[in-house]
Each structure stands twice: as C-alpha cells, then as structure tokens.
C-alpha cells in the first residue's frame, strides 16, 4: 500500500468520479430497460467498461481498473442501484484486471483490452441468460441479445482506449504511467 502514490490514487479517483457521474443516469436507464425492453440493457452494458478501460490504458498500473470502478460505484450509489452499484462496478473492474494480471501487467496492447472485455461479456451473458430465462426465447432473440452485448462492450473498449490516448496526449499521465519506450511508444495512440 505504501508503494502506491497519492497521485495515482487521486488520478483514478478523478476518472472514477467522471465514470460514476456517467453511470448515474445509466443506472436509471438500466432499471427502466430491465422492466420494459431487456434488449436495450444489452446496448448500455458497455458504459460500465469505459471508466476502468480508460484508467487502465492511461495509468498502466496494477489495480487502476479496480480502484476506478470502485470509486465510480461509490459515486453512482446516488441512483436506485444503491450499494449494489459498488458490487457491480467492482466486479467489472476485477474482471478487467484479470486479463492484465495473467500477463503480469507487461502487455498493454489494445487486443488484450478487447480480449478481456470479451471474456467478461461471455461470463455476463451466462448470468443474463439465467436471469431472463433466455433459453425459453426464440433463437433470433438470443442471437440479437448476444450480438448487441458484444458490440456494446467492444464499442466501450474502443471509446476508453481512444479517450486514454487523447488524455495521454494532453500530458496528464506524465510521470505517472511507466515511461513509454520508443519501441512501444504509445501503442494506444498508434493502434487505435
């Protein structure tokens, strides 16, 4: 804990605060959509990924996704989701960390962001299928639901990486993220 700088904590807090503000209306929408049109819930699931992806891509330090999503959960508690918002966001943050944990936080290429998000979405699809009794729905409904959810996640990762690259350009992460060597200079910038 001592090795973590206050600047790192506060940077994650700032990104988390912004993500949390975004999640408050999304939580309201999620409540409304769950009740009326579950298809639209699949469209908005990506919003939970933008904050942690941005933080992880910008700060490039272990725990950034978990901390950012935890903070965004605390902020978005001011919605009908209540404390369960923290559980949701922490779950998303932990899932995003996993992909980078198993590569020992050495790989920061966009594909790992996409792969991790895809793996998490597959798990999320499984729980959504149980909750909505999706087995009973027609095949095209299931296909549409899965497609929307995946596209939503990929769009969120794309937006998060792009945001992180543009934030890195402004210089706010200078001295915070590990020095980007010439060889892999701004992979986020080059590959997005």
């Amino acid at each position, binding site marked *: 804990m001592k090795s973590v700088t206050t600047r790192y904590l506060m940077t994650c807090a700032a*990104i988390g605060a912004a993500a949390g503000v975004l999640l408050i209306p999304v939580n309201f929408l999620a409540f409304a959509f769950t009740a009326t049109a*579950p298809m639209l819930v699949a469209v908005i699931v990506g919003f939970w990924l933008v904050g942690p992806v941005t933080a992880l891509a910008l700060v490039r330090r272990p725990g950034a996704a978990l901390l950012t999503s935890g*903070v965004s959960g605390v902020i978005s508690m001011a919605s009908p989701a209540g*404390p369960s918002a923290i559980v949701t966001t922490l779950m998303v943050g932990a899932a995003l960390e996993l992909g980078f944990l198993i590569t020992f936080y050495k790989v920061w290429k966009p594909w790992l962001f996409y792969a991790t998000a895809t793996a998490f979405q597959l798990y999320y699809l499984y729980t959504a299928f149980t909750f909505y*009794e999706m087995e009973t729905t027609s095949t095209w409904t299931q296909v549409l639901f899965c497609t929307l959810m995946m596209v939503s996640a990929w769009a969120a990762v794309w937006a998060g990486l792009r945001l992180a690259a543009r934030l890195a350009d402004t210089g706010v992460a200078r001295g915070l993220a590990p020095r980007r060597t010439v060889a892999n200079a701004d992979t986020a910038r080059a590959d997005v």
Partner: protein
Amino acid sequence: MSAATVQAPVVAEHAVVAAPARASAPRRAFLRTANPLVSLAGPFPLMVVVFFVADLRVLAAMGVATAILVVAGTLPGPRVSAAVLLGAPLTAGIVAVSFGFWVDAAAVASTPVLVQAGPWAYHAGQLEIGLLTGLRVVDLMLLALLGALATTGPDVVRASIQHLRIPYRLGYAALAAVRFVPRFGHELEVIRSAHRVRGVARGRGPVAATRRQAGYAVPLLAGGIRHAERVSYAMDARAFGAHSTRTERTTHPWRLRDTALVLSFWAACVAALVLAAGV
C-alpha cells in the same frame, strides 16, 4: 489556486456530504440508523438468490416482504412509499406481458391461448415465464432500492474503512472523488463557454450535439485529472497516509442489532431456497 481550496475536497467532505444525509434520516428508520454495511451484506445475498429461485410464489413473497421492508425500514416519505407499493406490482405486470412476447411460442404451444390475433397467439405459458422474469426484476429493484434509501456512498466507504479493513488511503480516494463531482459541473460550464467562444463544433441537430458533447470529454477529464494531481500534492504535503491508522470524525459502530439484521436477511435467503426447492 490556494492551498485551502486544494485541500477542501478531503477536509470539507465530512461536513458537506455526510452530515445532511445522516441528519435527514429519521431516527425511527431502523435501516438508516443501522451500520451502512448492513444494507450491503444483507440484501446482496438475496439478490443472488433471486437468480436461482424459479418459483413464482417464493419470488412474489420475497417481493412483498422487500417492499414492506423498504417502506418500514427506511421511511422514505409518502411519495416514494406510494411509488414503491404501487410501482412494484405494476412493473411486474408490465414485464410479465412484455417478456411474454420474447418467449418462443412453439415451446409453450400446449398451454391455453389467452389472446388470438389472426395467426398470432399469446399463450398462458408465455405469460407464466414472463411473470417469472417480472417478479425477478421487481425483487432485484426493490432489494437495490433498499440499500439506496438506507445509506449513502460516503457512509459505506467510511464503514468499510472501519470494519472491512480497507486501507484508508483507498477509502479517502473515493471520499475525495465525491467532492470532485460538483467541480466537474463547474468545469463543464467553463469548457462549454470556451468552446462556444472559439466556435468549436458549431451547428444544429443531434449529430452536431453529439459531436459537441464528445468534445467535452477530453478537456473535462484532463482538467479533472490535473485537479486530482494538485489535490494529491496538497495531501502529501500534509502527510496524508504517514500513519497506518487515522481518526475519523464520523464513526459507524457495529452493534448487536446490525448482526441481528444481517442474520435475518441471511435467514430469508435460506428460507427462500428451501421453499423454492421444497414446493
């Protein structure tokens, strides 16, 4: 920027964020006066249980019990109470019907037809599966609302630091973030004015509006992160995190009744699972 304003998010947080929330909670509302962690540890296992219970009667009973608990336990005032008590059955009904449409009609073709319109028919089996989802949705919403009305973010963070041994530096990052939010609002106004003066992304219509909104994201976040950086230096200058523990202005003691509340929530989980398996 003076040091006082830089430090403000951390110092003023107690007074500005926490105090009104606690003061507005009536003393009688037993879930609001309970430890904030109760509204996390109690309802959450029940939310998981909702996923696995596929019994209409058990789900309905859970919904009724939670709705009563929301109103009696948090005393949210007449308007919210009415919205909960009337909205819950209404939502369950709407979801039941609308979800029924998604159900594959071929699988429930043997059940009686409720509505017939030409070749298209709405079967009782569709409504039954829809009702299952409807009750789940309502149960989940009510359980979430229970926590939302019973506690606030900063209270949960402080209670987590005190009882879950979450390092206070992490907790205070979250508490500071709460104070960043109004700043974002102010900063957004400044950025909006600056863009307008410079004529960035002018035009009418939804496309131009979306482009304009997207253009605010980077300067807003960059400004937020720069502010966070200054706050962090001010905190470091005041030896934030120098000691392994710190004192708190607001404490959230864990009382016997908190244990009793959590245990009764967990007992409800077991009861729901047993009833769903036994019926």
